[in-house]
C-alpha cells in the first residue's frame, strides 16, 4: 500500500518533537477523526530556522508530517506557505488515494504555524 519512501519516513521520522519557545505553532486535526498534528517553527530572517512535528495518526500521517518538516526546513516563509499536499505526496513517491487527506493535514499544519507566527509579528509581513 505504501511506497518505500513513506515507510522510510514512518520508520525513521525526521524532526520529531517540539521547538523550544516556538515562534509559530500550528495545530490541525481532531481526536475524533484520528489524526492530530502539531507543528512548531523557529523563524529567523523570514526563513524557517527550525521545525519540528508531533503527530498522532496512521503511517501516512506520520510520513507526511515528517516530509513536510524536511521540505520546509530552511525555506523562506513565503515559499513554505506554498507547499501543497501534492508536493508532499510527490516527495513521498505518492500516497494511496484514501490517504491523501493526511497530506492535506500536514500542509495545513505548516501553514497554520506560519499564520500563527505572522499574527504575532505583523511588522515583518511582506
Amino acid at each position: 500500500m505504501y511506497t518505500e519512501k513513506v515507510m522510510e519516513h514512518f520508520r525513521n521520522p525526521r524532526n520529531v518533537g517540539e521547538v523550544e519557545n516556538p515562534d509559530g505553532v500550528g495545530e490541525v486535526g481532531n481526536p475524533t477523526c484520528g489524526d492530530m498534528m502539531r507543528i512548531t517553527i523557529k523563524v529567523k530572517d523570514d526563513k524557517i530556522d527550525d521545525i519540528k512535528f508531533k503527530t498522532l495518526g496512521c503511517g501516512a500521517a506520520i510520513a507526511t508530517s515528517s516530509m513536510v518538516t524536511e521540505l520546509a526546513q530552511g525555506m523562506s516563509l513565503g515559499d513554505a506557505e506554498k507547499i501543497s499536499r501534492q508536493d508532499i505526496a510527490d516527495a513521498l513517491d505518492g500516497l494511496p488515494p484514501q490517504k491523501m487527506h493526511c497530506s492535506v493535514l500536514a500542509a495545513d499544519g505548516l501553514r497554520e504555524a506560519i499564520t500563527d507566527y505572522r499574527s504575532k509579528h505583523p511588522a515583518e509581513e511582506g
Partner: protein
Amino acid sequence: MEKSIYMDYAATTPMRREVLDAMMPYLTDEFGNPSSLYTLGRRNRGVIEEARERIAAFLGADPREIIFTSGGTEADNFAVKGTVYANEKKGNHIITTPIEHHAVLAPCHYLEKRGFDVTYLPVDEYGLVEAADVAKAITDKTVLVSVMHANNEIGTIEPIGEISKVTRDKKVLFHTDAVQTFGHIPTKVDVLGVDLLSISAHKLYGPKGVGALYVRKGTKMVPIMHGGGQEHNRRGGTHNVAGIVGFAKAVELAEEEMDAEAKRLIELRDYLIAGIVERVEDVRVNGHPEKRLPNNVSVCLNGAEGEAILLSLDMENISCSSGSACTSGTLDPSHVLLAIGVPPEVAHSSLRLTFGGTTTKAEIDYVLEVLPPIITKLRAMSPLDASWGKKC
C-alpha cells in the same frame, strides 16, 4: 523474529494440510457436477451428502436442515432476507444488535431503505445483549431476531440460549451468526435454541468460498439464489464440491481437537491480555473477560493510532488487525467499539490479536517484547498532552 507471526485468525485461517489433501481429488479427476445423472456426477452427489451429514451431526441437526452457500456472508444474507421476505404477511419488523458483522447489518440497512423496521438492541460495555431487552423489543410485527453467537472484534459470547427461550416463547424466528464460534466452542442448535445459524469454512482451517446456513425444519424461507433447483430448490448453483469436502474435513478435525484447543488458546489469550496490561500503561481491554472467544485479544492502546501500530508490528513480522478508522474502508472507526461506548479517539487506538493452531507461547512472548516499545515510541510522537489546544 524472522518467522512470520500470524495473529489474525478471526479474519481467516490457514488451510490444514489434511483439508487440502481431502480436496485434491475434487480439484482434479473428480470434477463431476453433482446434479448430473452419469456416474462421475452421482459420485460427487454422494460425496457432498456425506459432507452434509458430518456438518449436520456436528451441529446436532438433520442433514436436510443444512444448506450449502458460498460462505458466511451469503448465509447471513440468506438468513435475513430469506426469512423476512417469506414472512411479509406476518410483519415487517426485525430485531438485531449494533455489533453484528456487516454481513448481517448491511442486509438490515438495505431492508430498512425498503420500508422494513429494524430495532437495534442495547448492548452493555462488554457488548452483551440481555434476553429481557429482546422480549421488550418483540412486537406482533416482528419476523426475525438476529444476534451473533460471538463478536469477531471484541470476542464477547452472547447468551444465545437465554435469548432463544424468549423467541420460542414469542414464536419469533431466531438467527445467529456463528461464523466465529463454529468449530471453536460448542454450537449445538438445540442447546442454542436457534432456528437459523450461519457458518463459514475458512474460519476453521477450511477453504474460502464455502459456508452453510442451518435452517430448522419448518422454517419458511424464500431463496435469494434462484437457479437450477439445487439444495431442494432453496439455493441454486452448482455445488462447490471441493470446498464442501474441505469444509467437512475441517469439521472432522474440529470434532477431535476443539475442546483441547479451546483450553490451550484460553491460556494463551489470558496470558497475552495480562502481559499487555502489565507492560503498557493506559490500556483498555475490550469485551467480556470470561464470556469470550478462546482466541480473542482486543485492546485499546490510548494515544497511539491503530494503523501505525499495525505497520510497526508488521515490521516485526507480526500480522494482526485494528478497529481504527485508517484501517477500515471508510473513515469511521469500528462500529462495534463505538457501540460498546468506546470514545472515537480511543477506538482509533484499538488492536485485535486472534490466534489459532500455529500460535505458540514463544510467539506471544515475542509480541509482549516488541509491543510496549512500539507504543512508547508512538505515544512520544503524539501531540496529545496537557498543552494541546493552548498555543504559546
